Structures are given as C-alpha cells and as structure tokens.
C-alpha cells in the first residue's frame, strides 16, 4: 500500500536510513521539458531565502555519483531505455540519501526540479512497465507538495523554438524515433510524457498549475500554495515580490 504521509517512504524503506528525525519541507516542481520549471524554482528559492529559510535545490542528473556518467551516456548513442531509467534512478537515490535527507534532517526547505515522477513518466512513455518502475522508485520520500506545471505540447514547442532555437535529441525522444524528424518526435514524445504525468495527478497528489500563464502569475500561485505549507521558523509567510530580477536558470 502506498504511503501518503509526507517524509515517509512511499512503499520501501531505504536500507539503513531512519526518517524519524526529518523535519524540513520537501517541495517538488514537476512538468514536461521546457515548461518553465527551473525559472520558477529559482524564483522560489530567492523568495524563501529572503524569508529566512535555508534552501537546497536539487535536480536530475546532478548527483556526485552518477551525474557525470549520465551526461556521458547521453552524448553517445547507445543508451537504451531500461538502462536510462535505472541510471536516473541511481542518480536520484544518490541525491536522496546524500543531499536531500541530510538537508531535511537539518531543517532545510528542499526544492526539487523533477522527482521520481519524471523518471516514471519517461519510462512509461518508452513503453516500460508502470508497476515495475513504481516499485523501483518506491524508496522515494513522500513530498509535502508536488506542483505540476501543466502545459499543452503546442506551448512547449513555442518555448523550445523561441527560447532555445533548437530541439534536443533526448527531449524529443529520438532514441525511440517517435517521428521522422526532431519536431515530429518531440510532439509525440512530449504528448506521451504529459499523458503519463496526468495519470499521476490523483495517486500522487499533484497540485496542477496552468503553465500557460505568465511567469509572475505562476509564481504568485506557487507562493500562495507554499505559504500554506506552514514553513517553520520565522512566523507566517506573506507572499512578497522577489526584489532581484528573475534568475534565468
């Protein structure tokens, strides 16, 4: 049975890890590629730090153990789907045990740019077994909140073309050739990812946020939600405007 209590393991305790003394907050921002997650994480971090909270942010393929290996694997053309899923799961476990849990123990607010849900969505989009990957990822901690920035594929395409000027091989799911070129493959692959994330909204308790809105409006919505989490310490948080300009992460 899947746990729903924050800072408990979903369904598999991590060997040798005690969660009884965790006290920080675990906040996840989820969403497909190019939806604007990292911009919002940077804004949230700035705001929370101004409010006096210690913040750790963590994102995919940033672990000391596997980050480099994943980057190198993606540069080649031999990374197969199950291997990729498990490599990302390794990366996640390393960050969970060595960064996230120690930070939670120390009372940090931990902001995560994509959690197990993206790993699972990618696996599902590649035709891997949903129950398999859900159980593999069962050692993840239940977050206090998951904010799902939801957009339609057409919006993602606009952001990619205007913002970056080119499609990314992996973001387009080119390893599986969903289409004859990067654009077609991107559209089909991202559509699958969004569909997979949509199915997690209820079971994983996502808060859905419409990512078609302007950046500052999304941010104010996020602030409102985060304020309700009752972050400990400096008294009630009021949503304030971050003074510095929006960081481009």
């Amino acid at each position: 049975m899947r746990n729903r209590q924050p800072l408990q393991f979903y369904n598999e305790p991590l060997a040798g890890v005690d969660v009884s003394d965790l006290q920080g907050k675990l906040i996840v921002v989820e969403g497909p590629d190019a939806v604007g997650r990292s911009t919002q994480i940077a804004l949230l971090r700035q705001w929370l730090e101004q409010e006096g909270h210690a913040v750790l942010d963590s994102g995919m393929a940033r672990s000391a153990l596997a980050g480099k290996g994943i980057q190198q694997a993606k540069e080649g053309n031999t990374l197969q789907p199950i291997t990729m899923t498990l490599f990302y799961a390794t990366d996640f476990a390393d960050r969970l045990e060595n960064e996230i849990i120690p930070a939670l123990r120390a009372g940090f607010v931990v902001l995560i740019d994509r959690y197990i849900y993206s790993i699972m969505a990618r696996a599902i989009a590649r035709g891997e077994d949903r129950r398999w990957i859900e159980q593999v990822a069962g050692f993840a901690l239940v977050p206090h909140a998951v904010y799902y920035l939801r957009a339609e594929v057409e919006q993602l395409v606009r952001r990619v073309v205007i913002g970056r000027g080119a499609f990314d091989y992996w973001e387009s799911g080119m390893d599986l050739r969903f289409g004859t070129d990067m654009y077609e493959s991107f559209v089909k692959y991202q559509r699958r990812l969004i569909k997979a994330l949509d199915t997690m909204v209820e079971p994983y308790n996502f808060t859905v946020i419409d990512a078609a809105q302007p950046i500052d409006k999304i941010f104010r919505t996020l602030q409102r939600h985060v304020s309700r989490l009752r972050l400990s310490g400096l008294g009630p948080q009021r949503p304030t405007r971050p003074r510095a300009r929006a960081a481009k992460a």
Partner: protein
Amino acid sequence: MSLFVPNRYRGKLIVVEGIDGSGKSTQISLLSHWLRSQGYAVAFSEWNSSPLVRQTTKRGKKKEMFTPTTFSLLHATDFADRLESYIVPLLKAGAIVCADRYAYTAFARDVARGVGRRWVRNLYRFAIHPNLAFYFRVPLDVALGRILGGRDALKYYEAGMDLGLARDVEESFRIFQGRILDEYDAMAKEMGFHIIDATQSIETQQLRMREIVMNEIGESLKNTVLHVPKTGEIVAQPSTAPVL
C-alpha cells in the same frame, strides 16, 4: 507474476552463480570453449562490465560513495545495459550467451547488504529468464581458502566493509560471504538452480555441466541455435524457423 521475461528468442542463455571462490568462472569458461568447439556461436557476458556504467562504478568504489541502495541500482543499470545492448540482440541472432553471474547475484548480495528482498526481485523483472542456471555450492571455508590464499588485498565492497560488520577485512569478508551463501541456498530451489557440488574436481564438475546442458537443451541447440561450420562462416541451421 513471473520473476523474469521468458526467453522467446532463438538463442539460449546459460548462467552460473555462486560465492567468490566457488570456481564458477572457471567452469563457465570451460563450458563456453567446449560449446564453441562443438560449432555453436557462443557469446560471453560478465557481471559488472558495461562500458557505459564503468566510470560511474569506478568513481563510486574509489571514493566509497555507495549506499546499499545506490550499489544495487547501479549494478542493475550495468546489467540493463548489457542485457539491452548485448545479450538480447545476441539471443535474437541465435547465439548461446554464457553469463558469469546474473540477476541472482543481486538477489543474494544486495539482500545481504540489507536491501529489501521483494524490491530487488522486482528491480530485475526485465531480465530474460535463463534457460539454465547453475549454482556452484561450496562450503564457506573452502571458498575462503581459495580466495584468501590466491589473491592480494580484498576489496572494500567485496568484503562488505561498507556494512561495518567487522574491523578486520578478512573477518568482514567471511561474515559477508556467509550471508550471501545463505541467500543463495535459500533461493536455490525456488529459482530452479542446477546445483553443482563445487568441492569436486574441476573435471568432474565440467562433465556434470556438459551432461546437464545436453539433457536440458541439447535438442534446441541442434535445431535453433546459430551454428558455425568449420569454415568460419556463420549460417543458420536449415531447419530453423524464426521464433520472433
């Protein structure tokens, strides 16, 4: 729910398991040479040998960064890469793939490290079910004698030093291998292992292995597996119908 994915390919998968010092590597090497000499296309895959994952494993071991969970997951990543990039394509092509250690190694070793039994079994559910799995059973002291006599230093993770079982490396190795041995013994029946008494002479064990291979999969070796005639040219047996 079945443990693994059934092997629906033309090729056959033969794996060996056992604790360090059980002699399984010697035996699978002899078996693969013999099968090759019989004209079969034989490939070989060793535990923890994926080029894609090698650097990461090296980093983790060198800096002693692993936890039981990341150790387990990275070895599963390594296994997945070998399976997806190497073993499955070769099985499709009709080769006999011999594997020195398979998912059972993780079942024994990771559980001995404290990882959940059900979790690690689920982790490897994508593995192809071997056609034959040999387990080289040997008493702990015999294996330890072979290992400790023949090699220089025991390695950190190999000895289970990450678990803090004992300060002395040899003592830690003894306790850790003992736990692994218990796990192997406990799963032997469930997994349908062909148990080989690894205290016997090398020749006796090898004869027994060949006998089991011929009894169990001799027919399909003749009929479906890729055959390499003496000229060196690789052709399928004429009677072969594609299984895919």
